[in-house]
């Protein structure tokens, strides 16, 4: 990522593309995008990664988190335009972008720790976490699909998220 930002290194960018494009496509499709729409979003996201590379701050987020938030915001913009085709393209759109992230948290080393913590979750909790992020599903749907009571879905998910946040708090 540093090579992309500092040297405008195309080969380094191509490697980022090769790593993230297939993951983003899978992620976006799981969130409900059709194949072609997912690829358009992948394209827009990676172009934005290239154009805004110098604004990436490794203390604020991992590369994966940064790439994810760009894709998420592109997806929201797209949904909004689909719902309101007459929208002025320059109208300020709502994006879930927190203006100033919490500057006291150094997120530099968080990626690996968090991935380990997800891998260490009991399988049923890890599944719920994935459903909560990928699924575009409300808890009631998750409850119906898994046959687990709604209250249990919510409390298990919270338990899992609490463990993950605790993993983030260690050493940070």
């Amino acid at each position, binding site marked *: 990522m540093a090579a992309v930002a500092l040297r405008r290194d195309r080969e380094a960018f191509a490697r980022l593309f090769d790593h993230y494009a297939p*993951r983003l496509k899978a992620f976006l499709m799981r969130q409900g995008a059709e194949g072609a729409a997912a690829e358009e979003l992948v394209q827009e996201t990676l*172009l934005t990664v290239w154009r805004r590379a110098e604004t990436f701050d490794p203390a604020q*987020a*991992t590369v994966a988190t940064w790439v994810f938030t760009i894709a998420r915001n592109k997806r929201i913009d797209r*949904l909004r335009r689909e719902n309101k085709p007459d929208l002025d393209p320059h109208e300020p759109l709502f994006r879930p972008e*927190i*203006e100033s992230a919490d500057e006291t*948290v150094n997120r530099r080393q968080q*990626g690996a720790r968090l991935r380990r913590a997800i891998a260490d979750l009991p399988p049923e909790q890890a599944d719920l976490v994935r459903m909560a992020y990928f699924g575009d599903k409300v808890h009631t749907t998750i409850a119906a699909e898994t046959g687990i009571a709604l209250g249990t879905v919510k409390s298990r998910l919270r338990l899992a998220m609490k463990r993950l946040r605790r993993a983030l708090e260690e050493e940070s």
Partner: protein
Amino acid sequence: MTVLTERDDLLVAYAAGLLPEAPSLVVAAQAALRKDVRRAVGDYEAVAGALLEDCETREVSPGLRESVLSLLNEESPTDEIRTPAGDSRVPVPLQGFVGNDLEALRWRRVIPGVKDTLLPTLGGGTARLMLVKGGVKVPAHTHQGLELTLVLEGAFSDASGTYGPGDLQLADDNVDHSPVAEKGTPCLCLVVTEAPVRLTGRFGRMLNRFVRY
């Protein structure tokens, strides 16, 4: 250790990009006001990043890579968000919806001392700003689904406690509450209600126009 609540469910959905626009406004506005919310959202976004890193892959079309690489030299289209200067009483994420003059909005008088104005959000739920004069009591009401009330200025209290700037009240449909604005500064709130079950049929549709809470 922090206890995760219904609020965290909202923050997770927000971080995932799965929360409708109206409740997203509440989260973004509260994050602008409070550091603990910013931190929590950052944590939940980090989880999304970790899930992306370990996500299964789906092969992209053969031409996509070339097409993206060939576009790297192109000037960026206007990608920037234009945020016009907004009213300082509302947090930045709301300013695009509110404009720079709160008074110029189309306010609707609910009862004397209480007025509200709808914000144009998409998707489930409705968002409105509500302004309650100091000491005025909002009529008792229940609602269908969840109601989120974020205090932007002033304060209000009800049976569950007192809420000041940056505080968020989550009330489900079991709560029958009648909040009272604290004396002094008028209480400005962002109120989001989940889309109520729409009444259907000719008669029902007519009633919908009058159903406020």
